């Protein structure tokens, strides 16, 4: 029975990782690429760690697998958040079919602050190249 669960979690986890890697090649824009690697990639890695916990029936291995799972699930959103924030400050172009960019009128890229109201005069430093590509 544990053999079956190991094979199941290994195959499903590898399939999710493959979907994440496919998305990172096919998606048109940095934010969409990050969305596939963060969700599908982290879930795939976590499921492969669960497969190891089913295969080795020792307490130490199960604890280590759960540690890998918790760590991947906890840190993938944080890493995606900080990379996305840095990329937005740098001015990475969004997809040309992006409909809403609420950060443009609420984020002060000079002072690195986010406001809840719209700014009086939005900073126009890198506004022109925001919708390139």
């Amino acid at each position: 029975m544990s053999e079956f669960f190991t094979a199941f979690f290994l195959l499903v986890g590898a399939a999710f990782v493959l979907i994440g890697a496919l998305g990172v090649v096919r998606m048109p824009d940095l934010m969409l690429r990050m969305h596939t690697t963060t969700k599908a990639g982290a879930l795939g890695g976590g499921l492969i760690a669960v497969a190891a916990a089913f295969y080795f029936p020792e307490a130490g291995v199960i604890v280590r697998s759960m540690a890998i799972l918790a760590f991947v699930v906890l840190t993938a959103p944080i890493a995606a958040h900080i990379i996305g924030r840095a990329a937005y400050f740098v001015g990475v172009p969004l997809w040309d079919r992006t409909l809403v960019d609420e950060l443009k009128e609420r984020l002060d890229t000079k002072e690195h602050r986010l406001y809840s109201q719209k700014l009086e005069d939005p900073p126009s430093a890198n506004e022109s190249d925001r919708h390139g590509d």
Partner: protein
Amino acid sequence: MSPWVINTVYLLLCVSLILAFARLVRGPSLPDRVVALELIASITVGLIIVYAIHHGMAYFIDVALVLALTGFMAAVGFARYLERGGSRDE
């Protein structure tokens, strides 16, 4: 563990590694490459765990744990480098 499962999982993970490497080479901006590197780190964690299951050596799980920690640190370092100045294109 039946060999076709292990072989299929190795194949899927290697194809994902090649796809992530293509984005690492092509990626138009530096954040794209950072995202590809992060994906490569998590694929490598998966490969190490599959290797541990294949050969029945449980202590390789420690290597995967350390690699997961290091990948997160690399992402934090790259993001800080990007936000506090540094080369903006490529």
